[in-house]
């Protein structure tokens, strides 16, 4: 494990330039460029904000702000999972030609997703100001939630990116699972909608805990549920170690399978 970390540190410049390539290279040639990573979720919010108030009668106060606080972290989640799962496969060309620590690939997807998300937090702040909700000191817990989400994502894609090399179906299965999870996570709705028992089951989903924490901190301006959050962080760290181990084992066959 120490060896892996040392090796990654030696290749830190590759991580940096790879992240830059992920962020800038993706939208190169398009007119709006990097702005697309913010326009897309905003358009999504627009659609939901028009459609959902009709379905959820009774309505949620400040529904657009409520939605944005759910959708931007969710966009962070899906882009990293979907891009991360295919990243080893897509970089097959370099993997077959040059040695470098392969872990760099999923890590740079997660880091570029994180940077995108941090920038898009500006949008959240703008909505918080204009809706009159404002800020509270509970925001000191925000880095903890972001960290939990980052570790969770990295752990997941270390595993899925390696599996996808051997079983190409993984990509489609994960795509489906992510779509399902969207409805099982309180993004469009508030978990208070359900009786306590069902809300508890929903809370087994780590993304539910994370989204609820963002909402508690930013929207309701209250204490996030620290115990649940703590469990997610510890679980994510375990997943991350497991992911590094699995990735390390599976990467030996990458060049031959690609």
């Amino acid at each position, binding site marked *: 494990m120490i060896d892996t970390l040392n090796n990654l540190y*030696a*290749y830190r*410049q590759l991580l940096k330039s790879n992240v830059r390539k992920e962020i800038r290279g993706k939208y190169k040639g398009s007119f709006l460029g990097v702005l697309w990573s913010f326009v897309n979720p905003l358009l999504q919010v627009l659609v939901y904000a028009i459609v959902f108030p009709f379905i959820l009668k009774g309505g949620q106060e400040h529904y657009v702000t409520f939605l944005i606080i759910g959708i931007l972290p969710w966009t962070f989640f899906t882009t990293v999972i979907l891009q991360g799962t295919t990243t080893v496969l897509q970089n097959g*060309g370099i*993997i077959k030609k*040059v040695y470098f620590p392969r872990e760099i690939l999923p890590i740079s997807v997660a880091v570029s997703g994180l940077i995108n998300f941090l920038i898009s937090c500006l949008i959240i702040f703008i909505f918080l100001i204009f809706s009159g909700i404002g800020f509270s000191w509970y925001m000191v817990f925000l880095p903890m939630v972001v960290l939990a989400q980052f570790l969770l994502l990295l752990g997941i894609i270390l595993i899925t990116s390696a599996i996808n090399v051997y*079983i190409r179906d993984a990509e489609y299965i994960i795509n489906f699972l992510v779509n399902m999870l969207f409805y099982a996570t309180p993004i469009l709705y508030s978990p208070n909608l359900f009786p306590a028992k069902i809300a508890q089951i929903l809370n087994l989903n780590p993304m539910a805990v994370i989204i609820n924490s963002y909402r508690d901190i930013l929207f309701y301006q209250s204490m996030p549920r620290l115990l649940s959050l703590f469990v997610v962080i510890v679980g994510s760290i375990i997943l991350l170690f497991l992911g590094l181990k699995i990735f390390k084992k599976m990467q030996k*066959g990458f060049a031959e*399978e690609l």
Partner: protein
Amino acid sequence: MRKTSNNNIVISVNNVSKTFKIYSDKPSTLKERLVFWNNNKTEYHEVLKNINLDIKKGETVALIGTNGSGKSTLLKLMTKIIYPTKGSIKTVGKLTSLLELGAGFHPDFTGRENIYFNASIFGLTAKEIDDRINDIIGFSELGNFIDSPVRTYSSGMYMRLAFSVAINVDAEILLIDEILAVGDQHFQDKCFAKLEELKNSEKTIVIVSHSLDSVKKLCNRAIWIHDEKIRMDGNVDKVVDEYLKVCG
């Protein structure tokens, strides 16, 4: 005494065998894996068998052999792109492999940006790249084109840029696979001179090549790989002559 001589060995290959799986039809999706799970005619193809060899610091070694004899596989094993089925390989010091030039170039980025990206794949830090960037651009002779996107380059310019990055990485061990034929005569001579210079500065170089003349000029040791095994190992002239007698 023994210890000091061991310290000089920068590549040591111990009992290495490499077997590739050959699928008649490789199952890569779940359905294929489930449907054809017992119908899997996997054949194994042994490319290298119990290879033992040590390369000392400062040696310039050529791997020669007919097509498919396993030279490139051995080179890939040394760079850790693939891993041996049996045995182990140890290398000491920073290692750069030029298996294919321009791996990881992004067509929309400029030559300069691609230098940073390509050099970072070889494990250089930003400061190390800053120190070398003028040498690299100078060596490539690209002039003002360095700030144009790489997709606008001719194939010769592309190769020149890629070679310039790779050769200026300053690794202690350089592994090269049949890429001495880059660019026009002038640039080829320049590459050759650069390799000579690296050779004289105590770098270890391993080359896979079919151009036996350049091998004879550049290397001092040759290893002939034939039928999964080392057939001959020693002075470059002797090995090349013997190889030509049998295979030429």
